[in-house]
Structure formats: structure tokens, C-alpha cells
């Protein structure tokens, strides 16, 4: 029963919301609005699970691993500071300490972590981007032409821009469309399997 009831809930709610899409009536819209609103509330209350998991893991690291204690402490300190400075709703406005910490701590660090990718992509371009075969040469050639569009090439700039425009709107578009159709069919199959109870991984183990 512990696994059967959730499967019946998925079956009934899945079928109701598929049918709802095709019925344009006030009652149908009522079901849709309340269904989505309830799902949002459930989701909101589920989010503290992730917060609790991270805090628990960081606390255990601080307690059990002396070598990593300082850095775990830094993480917990950052969390505590933001909690304290963000206690009032007014803290969400620009100029508060909470927003200053967001702007001068969170934004620079996150932006810089992702900016390291530029170096990694340069390294990858040097080490791995080789014309080993016809297919690899095609990939390399197309990437080369697209990257040239930010470089002023004098008389052939206009030709390069037109070529890049064509590459993006014809072969690239066709390739991505083929992938999209395949992904869409796969996603539809997965949705049907979930609704019919064939796919049950979301239930977890007993």
C-alpha cells in the first residue's frame, strides 16, 4: 500500500491534468489554478530540506574533520551573517548591509568562479581541438568561422557575418531541431511511463 497509493495519485493527477489542457472551461481553469498553486506551496515547504542538508553536512565537517574545520566555519559564518542581516523585509532593498554583502561578496566570487572557464576553454582549445578526421574538421571549421565574427577582417567582414548568419539559421538550426524532436519524443515517452507507473524511481527505496 505504501507504494500503491502514490502510484494511484500520480495516475489520477497525471490524467486529470492532461485532459484539463484540452477543456477550455471555467471549471477546468479552476482545477489548473488550484493544482499549480498547491504544487507551488508543497515545493516551497520542500526547499528547507536542501538548506538543512547543507548545514548538517557543513557542521559535521567542522566537528569531525580538524583539517577542514576553519573553512567549514567560514561557510557557517557566511550563512549566519546573511541570516542576521536579512531578518527584516526592508533588508531586501538596495543599500542595506544584506544587499551590500550580496553585491560585494556573492556577485564577485560567483562571477569569478565562472570566469575561470575562459581559461579552461582556451586550454581545451589548445589541447583537444584537433582536425583528426573529416567530422572533427567540420566542427573545427564551423567554430573557427563563428569565432571570427568578433574580429574585424576588413573587406571580408561582411562576408564572414553573412556566413555566420547562414550557419546559425540553417545547418545549426536544422541540427538543433533534429535534437529537439528526438528529446521531445523521449520526454513524452518518459511522462507517459511516469503516469502509468512504469517509471517509479521517484518513489525511492523502502
Amino acid at each position, binding site marked *: 500500500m505504501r507504494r500503491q497509493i502514490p502510484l494511484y495519485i500520480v495516475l489520477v493527477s497525471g490524467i486529470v491534468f492532461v485532459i484539463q489542457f484540452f477543456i477550455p472551461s471555467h471549471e477546468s*481553469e479552476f482545477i*489548473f*489554478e488550484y493544482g*499549480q*498553486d498547491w*504544487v*507551488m506551496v508543497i*515545493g*516551497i515547504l520542500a*526547499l528547507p530540506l536542501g538548506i538543512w542538508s547543507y548545514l548538517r553536512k557543513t557542521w559535521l565537517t567542522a566537528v569531525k574533520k580538524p583539517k577542514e574545520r576553519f573553512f567549514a566555519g567560514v561557510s557557517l559564518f557566511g550563512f549566519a551573517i546573511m541570516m542576521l542581516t536579512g531578518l527584516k*523585509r526592508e533588508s*531586501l*532593498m*538596495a543599500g542595506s548591509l544584506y*544587499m551590500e554583502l*550580496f*553585491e560585494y561578496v*556573492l*556577485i564577485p566570487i*560567483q*562571477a569569478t*568562479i*565562472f*570566469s575561470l572557464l*575562459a*581559461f579552461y*576553454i*582556451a*586550454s581545451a*582549445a*589548445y*589541447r583537444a*581541438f*584537433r*582536425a*583528426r578526421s573529416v567530422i572533427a574538421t567540420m566542427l*573545427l571549421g564551423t567554430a*573557427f568561422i563563428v*569565432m*571570427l*565574427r*568578433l*574580429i*574585424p577582417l576588413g573587406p571580408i*567582414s*561582411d562576408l564572414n*557575418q553573412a556566413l555566420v*548568419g547562414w550557419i*546559425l*539559421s540553417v545547418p*545549426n*538550426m536544422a541540427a*538543433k*531541431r533534429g535534437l*529537439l524532436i528526438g528529446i521531445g519524443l523521449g520526454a513524452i515517452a518518459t511522462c507517459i511511463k511516469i503516469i502509468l507507473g512504469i517509471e517509479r524511481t521517484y518513489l525511492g527505496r523502502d
Partner: protein
Amino acid sequence: MKWHEKMLNIDRRWIYLILGVAVIVPAVVSFHVPVNVTPEVRRVYDFIEDLKPGDIFYVGIDYDPASLAELHPMAYAILDQCFRKDIKPVVATLSQFGAGMAEQVLSEVAAEYGKESGIDYCYLGYKPYPAITIMLMGVDFRVPFPQDYYGTPIDSIPMMRYVHNFDDLKGVISLSAGTSSEFWIIYGYGRYFMPLALGVTGVMAADYYPYLQSGQIFGLISGIKGAAEYEALTEYKGEGLKSIPYQTASHVVILAFIIVSNIGYFASRRSKK
């Protein structure tokens, strides 16, 4: 070790150093790089330019600091255009760190034009679960956002008195770095068929051309170049145009890396034969 083997096995930190130096060059030696405007960016500009004063337009700041470099300039340029034309933007964010950045953009640009929250723009704030939020916004903005970001009930905001859902807006643009763009197309356009444009990062841009060609989106601003194109159209002096010379220098270096490594690779292959 032969020259091509040395070349192919170079320490990656030399590559980092060369790229780092290349990116710093435009900081010392300034030069101008012309930016040509693509049709997909011009369509977004023309759409907003054709709106009348008082029209209401949705701007989604659905990105986080990791994509700040590419999408923040777009946000500034679009909101500047809206305020310049007295268009009233409804702004919301579906990204957890977008809320702070949207507040930053709005407070700066609105202050330049003397615009007031609730009268000239409305900042709804943040809600999690983008797909659900988009679908509920299509029913009524008051369902996912009973209050705005500052805690004011939506019903008491003058600008939102007659605005209930996407039918009451002229269009939607979402600036997004993740799955929100896809969700806007599937759950937003797919259910409500409102005019939709996207601003996306360079990494994702190529994936959205099928939607552009099929008409599911009417415009696409791609990456830092798209942001620079939009700034050129709106004549807004922002970070987009400023970044292009740096981009050019970096691209030259990366293309040189590709050429040099392939020369080494082919020399290595020939010597093995």
C-alpha cells in the same frame, strides 16, 4: 623531445598566462571594434520601440551572477529603452540570485529617469519553480505574486490595477542563463501564445534558433555580442560595447592556439609516419 612534442605538451599555466595578458591588452591600448546588428536582435529593439507610452511590458531577470557579464548589459539597455519611452515594465525574477540583481538594475535605471515603483514600474520579486510560476502568471499575476518584492499587495499597486495576466501585457522578454528560457517557451508561449523574446548567454544561444525560425520567439539576443548590438541600437553606453575589444583580443589568441596546436599535431603525425 622534438619541437612539436614540446609544443603539444606545454604546461597549461602558460596558456592561462598568454590568455590573461591578451585580455589585459585592451585595458592599456584602447581600440574600437565595429558591431553589426543581426536581424534577431533588431526585431526585439523594433518591438519595444514600436510600443506606445503607458504600454506594459514584462521583463524577466532570470539569471544569476555567473551570467552577469552577458545578461546584465541587456537588462540595463532594455530597461533604459522602456523608461525612455515611458513604457511600464513589470519585472520579476525566476532565479534565486536574480532578485538582488534585478533590484540593483531597477534602482539605478529608474532613478536616472525619476521613475517611481508602483506607478512607472512594478517589481514583483522572486518565486521558485519557474515552470509553475510562469503558468500561474498566465492565470493571474496575483496568484504567484500576492505582494510585490517590497511587500505591497498587488491589488493596491496603481499600475497593476487592470493588469491580470499575459493578455494585459504587450509582450514578454526573459533574460535567462538556464532552463528558464526553455520553460518560457514551453509553459509560457505554449499555453498563452504571448509575444516572447529571449536574451540568453552565448553558451545557449545556438540552441534557440529552431524556436526563432518556428515563430515561438520573435527575437533573440545572444550573449555579449547581442548585448553590444542592443546597446548600439539604443545608444546606451553600457558594458556590452565596452567588452567587445577585450573579446576580440581573446578570440585572436584562442584562434591562434587552435592553429598552433593543429600545426604541432600534423607535424607530429608526419614524423610518426
